[in-house]
C-alpha cells in the first residue's frame, strides 16, 4: 500500500492528475477492445483497427458530451477522408509525394485554430502516410483495412465517451494537493528548525523540492484553467492568484529559514519556539483547508488566523542588520500567509 502511494506520488509529481497516464491506459484499452472485435479477421485488418483506434484517441479534448461527440465525428471524418485519399494515390510515387507535401502544409496551417499543442494534425498526416505504405496486393483487400478502420474509430469513440477527462475535478484535486504539500512543507521547516537549532553539522534544505512540486501543481492548474469553460472562471482565477501569493510567502520563509539554519545561535530559545509554534499552527490550518468541487474554500475557522500574531513577542538576542532582516522576513512571511488565506476565505463571504 505504501509502495503504491509512493509510486502514485512520484507519478503525480511528473504528471499532475495522472492526465497522460490515464490517456495511455485509455488508448491501450480501446486498442485491446478493437483487437477483440477483430480477433477473427486478417492481420492487416487487425493492424488497421489498432492504428485507427490509437490515432483517433489522441486530440479530442472537449469536455461536454455534446462537444465531445462533435469533435469525435469531425476528427474521424477527417481521418477517414485522408485515409481514402492516401489509398487513391498510393500507386503513383509523384502523386503520393505531392499529397503528403500538401497535407504537411495543411495540418501545420490549421494549428492556428487552437491546435498548437494538439497531436491530432500529426495523426491526420500519419494516417494518410500509412495508407500509402500499407502492404496490399490487389483491390479486393482494400475493404479489409477500411472495415478495420471503422471498427477502430468506433472503439475509440466509445472509450472517449464513457471515460472523458474531467478537468474541473483535476483542477480541484491539484488545488487540494497544493494545500497538502504546502502544509507538509511548513511542517518540514518546523522540524528542521527544532532539530538544527540544537545541533551542528551538515544541513540539508529539502524545501526546494517542495517549492518545485508547488510550482508544478500551479503550472498544471494554469493550463487547466485555460481549458475549462467560462463558468466559475472568476473563482478559479482567484485561486490561482492567491496560490501564487502563498508560494511567494513560502519562498520568503524558505529564504529566512535557510539563513537561520546556517547560524542557529542568533535566535534565542524562546524565538525558536515561537517560530516552531507558528509553523505548526499554520501547517495544521492548511492541512484542514480544502477546495470543494465548486472551487469554494472549506474546512477551517477564519478566527484562528486573527489570533496568531497579536500576542507574539519577537525577542531578538543580539540585533544586527542580517539578523534583523532575517527576522523581519519571517514575520512578513507569516503575515502574508495569514493575509492570503484570509483573502481566500473572504472571497467566499463576498461571493
Amino acid at each position: 500500500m505504501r509502495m503504491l502511494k509512493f509510486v502514485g506520488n512520484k507519478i503525480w509529481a511528473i504528471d499532475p492528475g495522472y492526465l497522460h497516464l490515464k490517456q495511455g491506459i485509455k488508448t491501450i484499452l480501446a486498442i485491446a477492445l478493437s483487437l477483440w472485435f477483430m480477433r477473427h479477421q486478417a492481420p492487416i485488418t487487425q493492424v488497421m483497427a489498432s492504428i485507427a483506434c490509437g490515432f483517433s484517441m489522441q486530440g479530442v479534448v472537449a469536455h461536454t458530451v455534446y462537444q465531445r461527440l462533435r469533435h469525435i465525428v469531425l476528427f474521424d471524418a477527417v481521418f477517414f477522408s485522408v485515409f481514402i485519399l492516401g489509398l487513391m494515390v498510393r500507386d503513383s510515387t509523384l502523386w503520393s509525394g505531392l499529397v503528403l507535401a500538401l497535407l504537411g502544409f495543411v495540418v501545420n496551417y490549421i494549428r492556428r485554430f487552437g491546435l498548437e499543442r494538439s497531436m491530432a494534425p500529426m495523426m491526420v498526416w500519419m494516417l494518410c502516410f500509412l495508407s500509402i505504405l500499407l502492404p496490399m496486393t490487389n483491390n479486393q483487400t482494400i475493404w479489409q483495412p477500411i472495415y478495420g478502420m471503422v471498427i477502430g474509430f468506433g472503439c475509440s469513440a466509445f472509450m472517449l465517451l464513457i471515460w472523458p477527462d474531467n478537468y474541473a475535478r483535476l483542477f480541484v484535486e491539484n488545488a487540494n494537493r497544493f494545500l497538502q504539500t504546502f502544509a507538509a512543507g511548513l511542517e518540514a521547516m518546523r522540524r528542521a528548525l527544532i532539530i538544527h537549532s540544537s545541533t551542528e553539522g551538515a544541513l540539508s534544505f529539502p524545501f526546494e523540492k517542495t517549492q518545485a512540486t508547488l510550482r508544478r501543481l500551479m503550472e498544471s492548474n494554469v493550463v487547466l484553467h485555460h481549458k475549462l469553460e467560462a463558468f466559475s472562471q472568476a473563482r478559479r482565477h482567484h485561486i490561482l492568484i492567491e496560490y501564487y501569493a502563498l508560494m511567494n510567502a513560502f519562498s520568503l520563509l524558505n529564504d529566512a529559514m535557510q539563513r537561520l539554519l546556517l547560524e542557529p545561535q542568533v535566535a534565542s530559545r524562546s524565538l525558536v519556539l515561537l517560530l516552531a509554534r507558528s509553523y505548526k499552527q499554520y501547517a495544521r490550518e492548511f492541512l484542514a483547508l480544502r477546495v470543494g468541487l465548486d472551487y469554494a474554500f472549506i474546512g477551517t475557522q477564519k478566527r484562528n488566523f486573527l489570533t496568531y500574531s497579536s500576542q507574539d513577542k519577537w525577542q531578538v538576542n543580539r540585533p544586527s542588520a542580517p539578523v534583523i532582516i532575517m527576522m523581519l522576513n519571517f514575520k512578513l512571511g507569516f503575515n502574508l500567509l495569514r493575509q492570503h488565506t484570509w483573502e481566500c476565505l473572504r472571497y467566499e463571504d463576498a461571493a
Partner: protein
Amino acid sequence: MKMPLRNTTKMGLQACLAIILAECVSFYFQFEHGYWIALTSMALITQTWGESLKRSFERVGMTILGGCVGTMLYFLCPVNQELIVILLLVFIFFTVFLLPIYHLLGVFFLTCFVVFLFALMGDWNFYLLKARILDTAIGAFIALLVARFLFPLKTNIAELFIHYFYKIDAAVNGLLDEESHKLYQVHYYLAADFQKIRTDALAIRYELLFHRLNAQDFNTMLNHIELCTYFIGYLIDAYRWLADYLTIEDKRLLQAVASTTSHNIHALVLVLEKKQQAGILPATDVMTLLENEIKAFPKRFATLENNALGFYNLMYFFAQLNLNLGAVFSILNKKYF
C-alpha cells in the same frame, strides 16, 4: 501593406518543403525504406529552430538506442504473436504516457514499437535497423536544413528578455502609486510569464550553440532573473501589507530607490539592444543603513513589534532586486562589449 506570415504558415511551408526534399532524396538514392525520411522530416518540424534542434538530437539518439534495445528484445523473445501484441501494447502505453512529458523517453518507446510492429507484419532484422537509423538521421538533417534556412523561427532571446524587463519596470513604477492594489494580479502574470520562459529554456539553449551567449551564461542569467521575479513579487505583496505603516519620509526614500531600479532596468534593456552602457547604479546599502538605525534606536529593534520596521523589508527587497539586475548586466556587458 505587407502582412507578416504567421508561425503556423511558416511551419506549414517548412513541412511541405521538407517532405518534398525527403521524397526527392529517397527517389534519387533509391532507398528501400525511404518513407522513414519523410516521416522523420515531418515529425521534426516544430515551433522554433531550437525546439527542432533539440528534438532532432533526441530523435536520432533514441532511435539508435530504442532500435538496438528493441532488436535485442525481439531476438531474445520467443516467437509468439500474442507476446508481440502484448509488448506492442506496452510500448504504445509508454509512448502515449511519456511523449508529452519526456520527449526523449517517449521516442525510445516509439522506436521499440516500430521494431515490434514490423516484426508483427513480417520480419525485423539488422538490415532494417540500420536502414531505420540512417533514414532517421537523413530526415533529421533535412528538417534542420529547412528549419534553418526557410522562414527560420528563431527565438529572439534579447527581445524575450526586453519584454520581460519592461513588465518588471512597469510593476516597479506602479508599486508606490495610489492604485497599487491593482498590482496584486501583476505578480501572478509575471510569474506565469517567467514560467513560460523557463519551460522554453531547454529549447532556447540549443539555439545558443552558435551564439555568443553560451548555455552556462544563459542558465546563470535565468537564475538571476528568477530571483528578480521573486523579489518583485515580495515587494508587491509586502507593500500591500506595509503601506499603512510607512511614514512620508519612508515613502520618499522608497520612491528614490524605485527610480534607481527603473533606471537600472532601462540600462539593462539598452545592453540587450547592444547599446553600450557605463553601468548600473548601486542600490542603497541597506545593511549599513540598518546597522546605524540599530545603534541609534536599539530598543526599537529588540522586539520587532513595530510594523513600521517593515520599511527595511522593502528596502532589502529593492537592494536584492538591484543586486540580481546587476549580475545580469555584468554577464551581458562582458559578452557583448
